[in-house]
């Protein structure tokens, strides 16, 4: 286990280095030269321009530029955003809480919906409940978030006028904040619920027909105890790993919802950064998501081994 973990971590580090090279390369060889694009950007004051030019060595060959970026990134110096002129680190820290609040609540909502519904669906396979649930999961899985978000806005903001459709980060107070978060949380939450319900149902179906469940029943345990403590506990194992794998995807999904509802979070910062060729911001967010993907891959594997004693990594 220990050796396995060390090997996984080493592989992760190597793949992160490779990913950062790919991302940096894509930005560096892009036509229109976004890395030096700020030279024409009137928003960039001359002293900042000189500082970045010096730090990144924009006249150096690309590998040297990469090495300079990588060393300053490792030192925790993520450079200064070209447009907001803030240190990128502060800029991201300022944007992150909204994204975590919205996406996090959406994810929790999704899990809370998916696990009981998926389990009940599997226990009562082919019942009316199962049919309705699987149909809704299928619909939810097929509707893109940008369309469901637009539909909610048209119904609840434009037609009924119940909810605001532009997220205002200046709003204070609990209730107004809840009100403006309802739609984005639901759009993201229902999308992940649809996916998770299908996994939970499939996993539960597999477990429920196994011998140990029949044994539990024949021991005379109450049905609820069989379902909750014997079947669901085991069905949750693959679902937990899928939940871990989905966490980095939340930030990708946030790009779209934050654009629909104009939430000033990380996804919005990425889109704005791309639009203004703000390389330090784009690089930091993209690479940050890459780190999350790699880290949660390892976490998912470890969780699997911890939860399921049958799994042993050598």
């Amino acid at each position: 286990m220990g050796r396995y973990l060390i090997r996984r971590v080493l592989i992760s580090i190597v793949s992160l280095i490779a990913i950062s090279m790919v991302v940096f390369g894509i930005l560096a060889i892009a036509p229109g030269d976004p890395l030096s694009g700020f030279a024409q950007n009137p928003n960039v004051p001359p002293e900042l321009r000189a500082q970045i030019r010096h730090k990144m060595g924009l006249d150096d060959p690309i590998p040297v530029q990469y090495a300079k970026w990588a060393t300053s990134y490792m030192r925790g110096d993520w450079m200064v955003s070209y447009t907001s002129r803030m240190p990128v680190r502060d800029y991201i820290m300022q944007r992150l809480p909204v994204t975590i609040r919205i996406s996090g609540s959406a994810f929790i909502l999704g899990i809370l919906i998916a696990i009981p519904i998926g389990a009940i669906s599997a226990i009562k396979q082919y019942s009316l409940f199962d049919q309705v649930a699987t149909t809704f999961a299928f619909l939810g899985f097929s509707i893109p978030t940008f369309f469901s978000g637009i539909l909610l806005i048209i119904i609840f903001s434009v037609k009924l006028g119940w909810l605001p459709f532009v997220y205002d980060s200046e709003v204070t107070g609990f209730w107004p904040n809840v009100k403006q978060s309802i739609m984005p949380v639901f759009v993201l939450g229902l999308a992940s619920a649809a996916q998770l319900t299908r996994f939970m149902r499939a996993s539960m179906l597999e477990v429920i027909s196994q011998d140990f469940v029949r044994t539990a029943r024949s021991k005379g345990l109450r049905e609820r105890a069989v379902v909750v403590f014997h079947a669901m506990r085991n069905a949750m194992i693959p679902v937990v790993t899928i939940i871990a794998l989905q966490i980095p995807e939340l930030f990708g999904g946030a790009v779209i919802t934050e654009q629909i509802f104009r939430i000033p979070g990380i996804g919005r910062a990425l889109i704005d950064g791309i639009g203004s060729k703000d390389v330090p911001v784009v690089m930091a967010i993209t690479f940050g998501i890459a780190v999350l993907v790699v880290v949660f891959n390892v976490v998912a594997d470890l969780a699997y081994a911890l939860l399921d004693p049958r799994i042993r990594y050598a």
Partner: protein
Amino acid sequence: MTQRVDVGPAAAGPRLESTGPVEPAVERATAIDFRTQKQRSLWGNAWRQFRRHKLAMAGLVVFTFMVLATFIGSAIYPQAIDDIDFSASSGSLSREHPMGTDSLGQDILARILWGGRISLAVGIVSAVVALVVGTSVGAVAGFFGGVADSALMRFTDLFISLPQIPLLLVVSFLYRQAFYNYFDKRFGSGVLGVFVLIVFVIGILNWMPTARLVRASFLSTREKEFIEAARSIGASQPSLMFRHILPNVLSPIIVAATLGVGAAIITESALSFLGLGFPSDIPTWGSMLYAAKDRFEIAPQEAIFPGTMIFLTVLSINYIGDGLRDALDPRKTL
């Protein structure tokens, strides 16, 4: 890929003929006898099974309708897609404009029909790109094993851990103009350049699940007795890979490719919705949503119709994929 990929019914059906170039006369005679007995092929069985899946059939009907409507409909439907008429701006549904007009007075139905071609084509072509890359990588890794396998799988793992959405956005934004200009100069069509770029990026970020699937199937199939038999009568390696193994691992690939079309349509629409895909003067379903997104109060139809088209198309593709999964599962046939 230079080898012939034989995916026809004969390749996947029960193998009666020898694989050598010369077919003995005796064997041909028995084959004819079989045909008179109305043999049930694997694909016949799959189709019979597929027809029983009502929602999959409904999906097939809807999807066929979408394809016909977008490819033939826009030739028949009289309105132009770029007929700017400010007096008819943001008009709601009328006899002249069945789905209303957008901010420039352009007919929404005409734009949906025309743009649907692009959305559908992007979905299908990028799924094919992902299919070809994924199948090649998976087949080579699974068939040859050893160093080739571990190298290719490391490569696949690297692609899996790439941050997909940010990369998609960055690449299509940064390289869009260059592709547009290059194709405009070279082939006289800048839109083709944007199309190639988007298809390439979506395909190249989505081949990995197919590669893993194909590799796993190849690994298990290459140890089977009938492969040993084919090898012992001297079948060449390409023939083993593409004639003997590939047809037997085709079912999961087909299902994955079908679902890939729907996913690619959503990805393209998302890109265009964010303003980073097709430019807004080229109507695709996603770029129509982009144009509509600040005008929900004035003209909700501008968003509702293209959005519904995306939803219906993806839903029908997903149901077709679901039906195929059931139909191609050999445990369920007969």
